[in-house]
């Protein structure tokens, strides 16, 4: 065989090998959650068993526990409720803010943009104490509305910064053309800039939903009643009794709530990546 052919096949094999490794690495947690969900307790705990396969027939018992003996359905609904509201609030605030930073403030735009990004870097573990006071004063303890109020504090800065990059990549000519064609600046923004930025808006939606679904500290601090929990707090609170872990149900809970996000990511993965790199290059 000729040397270039060998080289080509070598490169190909190396390429596939690396991709394969990463695939296994990222898919393994899903596989683990899925098989554990349907494993019997005895199968799980016997040390002689091969942990990667079913040694005893699968069961639906864990899923039954999750849905019948905990408020999992309710938690899912809570999470969705908070998530959607936070998405709406985030879009309402960060679309105009990002646009303003990209267009209207001249050289101050960039500095403000960096400033806003820096506020995103302040960790929730530092903020939850002062936030608790605010929530207390507003009388929102143990209410989902406390989360609706608090979550935008970290989604808005990041999404503003993200959208700013998007808007900067849109030529100002387009808005100016729309303004000459008969619209105000706001009209040009709504009819031309927003439709062109669909990719950015999708990125914001997915990103915000993900953050809300995984958030733990605020949800644990501000919510006390079980029926108000979100998935990220409810599942570990109710399926870990002291040092007894209900592994099957835990994994079922984690699997069910992570799959929709994974699907969402995969549907929009190209646009999502564009969302993070646009503006970086230009």
């Amino acid at each position, binding site marked *: 065989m000729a040397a270039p052919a060998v080289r080509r096949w070598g490169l190909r094999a190396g390429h596939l090998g690396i991709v394969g490794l990463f695939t296994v690495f990222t898919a393994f947690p899903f596989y683990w959650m899925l098989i554990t969900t349907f494993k019997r307790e005895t199968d799980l705990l016997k040390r002689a068993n091969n942990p990667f396969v079913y040694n005893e027939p699968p069961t639906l018992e864990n899923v039954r526990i999750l849905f019948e003996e905990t408020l999992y359905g309710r938690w899912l609904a809570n999470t969705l409720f908070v998530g959607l509201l936070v998405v709406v609030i985030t879009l309402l605030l960060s679309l105009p803010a990002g646009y303003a930073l990209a267009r209207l403030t001249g050289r101050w735009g960039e500095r403000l943009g960096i400033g806003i990004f820096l506020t995103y870097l302040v960790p929730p573990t530092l903020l939850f104490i002062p936030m608790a006071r605010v929530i207390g004063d507003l009388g929102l303890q143990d209410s989902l509305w406390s989360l609706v109020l608090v979550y935008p504090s970290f989604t808005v800065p990041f999404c503003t910064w993200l959208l700013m990059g998007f808007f900067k990549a849109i*030529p100002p*000519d*387009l808005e*100016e053309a729309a*303004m*000459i064609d*008969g619209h*105000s600046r706001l009209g040009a923004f709504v009819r031309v800039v927003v439709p062109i930025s669909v990719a950015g808006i999708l990125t914001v939606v997915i990103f915000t939903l993900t953050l809300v679904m995984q958030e733990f500290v605020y949800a644990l601090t501000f919510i006390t009643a079980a029926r108000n929990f979100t998935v990220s707090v409810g599942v570990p609170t109710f399926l870990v009794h002291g040092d007894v872990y209900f592994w099957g149900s835990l994994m079922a809970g984690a699997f069910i709530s992570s799959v929709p996000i994974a699907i969402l990511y995969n549907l929009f993965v190209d646009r999502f990546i564009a969302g993070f790199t646009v503006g970086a290059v230009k």
Partner: protein
Amino acid sequence: MATVEARRVSKQFGDVRAVDGVDLSTREGEFLVLLGPSGCGKTTLLRMIAGLERPTGGEILIGGQVVNDLPPRARRIAMVFQSYALYPHMSVFRNIAFPLKAAGMPRAEIPQKVEWAAALFGIERLLERKPRQLSGGERQRVALARAVVREPAVFLLDEPLSNLDAKLRASARDELQQFQRRIGTTTIYVTHDQVEAMGLGDRIAVMEGGRVRQIGTPAEVYDEPADTFVAGFLGSPPTNLVEAADVLVGFRPEHFLPREAHTDGGNLTTLPFHITRVEYLGADRILYGALEGRFEGARVVARLATTVEAKVQAGRTQDFAVRARELKFFDKVTGLRTTARVP
């Protein structure tokens, strides 16, 4: 239809005076070209007329009405951008319909109007496409159709041909002018390309350093330049400028011919010309060199049409001549045109 007038309009960007007290007015239905090198303020002036920039001083009038405080949408203008600025998420049809919808035209009347504008530019078959599926020339037509569709009082065009390749540009220029003549709408056209300006404009306003240096018909600005800038900017190669006592003497390369080539006689000024290089360009020969004798060392260029059969050779000094009426005189300090003085 309307005229556009600028009264002592200026624009300051920080420390930079982009437009410096410009007075300008178009005539009814005129094709006025703003010509100048990049950074001369021509685009800023156009954007102020469009309402995209606010003047820091002076007034802008459209149709006799001061429009300084009107937003772009209220000025009854249409603009074609250098980038064409087609809305990428809309089909050609929706792009052209966009200004009509914004103006609140009844839904039923829109298709007819769009088709009328599309027919003007021969783009009826492109109406379903998206801008990214169009060639440069097609995009330019769509941009023009979008501008014309709501029958504005004034057209503003910002280098609309600069993104086309050379061949297409010539035919687009031709179409553009025919179209403007047909609809007769006052048009202001910005370009840095003197060929475009000379070919298209009823009048040309030559700008430099934020000021209008001269405004006149193509023949006026070319034949009777108001100052050394205009003389040097127009023409290729530009006007020769030679220092003589207290004035600058200017003459066009195509008027600087071998003495024997001036067959019609007349009052000739003879200048010995040492040729250093000859460029053969097909239709013309361009001769580079320096004068000798009275203006020893002054570098000048001559342009001989191939119909001038005189023999020229690099390395030789030959007698060249300019007709006395082709000599233009400029003040050495201000660069402005002065009266004739015998050099």
